[in-house]
């Protein structure tokens, strides 16, 4: 019958260290995929980041007036903007990582970041 070796204190420390490292690595690996979605808003006045889990209505000043953005149920949309073409408003809700829209005349750019990766790396349009 195999006689198990007597482990010394250092062996216990080494084992504990290895287990701790494995645990930390596992936590890191599994948590990176479920990072909360954020909304990044870039304006003439600076860059702002919001948690998409917290509903909010936000106003941003730009060269031609105020762009109003709504965060609701994990999505973000431009509610109103003083631009002529209303492309930003008509873009609808942004909900996946990499989704973005912009009001060019009012210099407001919004993008969802930190959510699950979309199927493509970039869009040619």
């Amino acid at each position, binding site marked *: 019958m195999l006689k*198990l*070796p*007597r*482990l*010394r204190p250092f*062996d216990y420390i*080494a*084992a504990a260290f*290895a287990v701790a*490292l*494995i645990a*930390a*690595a*596992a*936590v*890191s*690996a599994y948590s*990176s995929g479920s990072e909360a979605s954020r909304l990044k808003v*870039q304006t003439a006045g600076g860059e702002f980041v919001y948690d998409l889990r917290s509903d909010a209505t936000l106003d941003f000043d730009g060269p031609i007036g105020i762009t109003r953005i709504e965060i609701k149920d994990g999505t973000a949309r431009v509610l109103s903007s003083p631009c*002529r073409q209303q492309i930003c408003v*008509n*873009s*609808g809700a942004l909900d996946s990582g990499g*989704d*973005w*829209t*912009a009001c*060019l005349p009012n*210099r407001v*750019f919004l*993008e969802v*970041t930190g959510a699950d990766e979309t*199927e*493509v*790396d*970039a*869009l*040619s*349009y």
Partner: protein
Amino acid sequence: MGVQKSLRAAVIVVFVLLTAAAGGLGAPSEEKTSEASFLFDTVCTITLYGKAPASHFIDVFSRMEEIESRLDLYDDGSALSELNRHAGMGPVAVPEELFEVVKHGIAYSRLTGGAFDITIGPVQQLWDIGGDSPEVPDSADLAAALSLVDFKKVIFFEHGKRILLESRGMMIDLGGIAKGYAADQAAKLLRDLGHRRALVNFGGNLVALGTRPDDTPWRIGIQHPDRSRGDTIGIVEVTDATVVTSGKYERFFEQDGIRYHHILDTTTGYPVENGVASVTIITGSSMKADALSTAVFTLGLEAGLELVNGFDGVEVVIVTENDEIYLSKGIGDDFSLVDTRFKVIR
């Protein structure tokens, strides 16, 4: 004692291996940082991977602002505006960068038989599509503007880097290649700064440097012509390449229930209506892709495919309004269909 030592060593080896494996499992993917700026009348985004000092973004966007200040038709203070103001009045000395870009623009105009023509300025100005007050021009005004469109009337003088626009009223519009040129320059600058992989996206003009962080090709979505921004019709896989799309859905206005888009026919002066919905070019130079996407759109399906098949290293995806997608010969398996309503013709 010998057995004990061996077993202890084995235990340590097992722990080390487990730790290394777990470390690999938990290793975060390469860090990704994006910055955006409003330039060239669109949103320009740069995405860097790995260590990306903030100064790199500043360097690239500063360079882009410099390019815009030279090539922007709508900035009265730009070197291009200065050149256009002197049309018909004699040669004008211009910055070397403008000289070279205009030369390239004329070369592409010649290569495409004028289907792409950078002297389209007077017609573009009349329509003002994407501007504040777009409208269908009066036919006499349009005919007058169209008579000024002729790339053969742009003369270059290497000595002193001077350009002559032969007729009064002529106007060069670099809108068809400026974003492409800028994207090429941004990619070059990023390479010089040591970036092996990056995505440069200037209003849909894409340059993909290197590969994805997992060393597979980049997956670039092609905008669906009938759906909202972000919905893809297909995906192309590329490595170290540019992907540029011209689509009739991108800039347009409506008058009396008719939609007018921004890609103008250089022979009629009206928006091109030939059954093509979008053209995507995949090649090495973004400026070339920019020019060719417009030219192929204007030429239409058959002549457009013929034009592209005449170039080495240029591939095309043409989406028609009949729910068909035509691919050039060399695209192989690099294109995958997303909207299965469309029929792929290789």
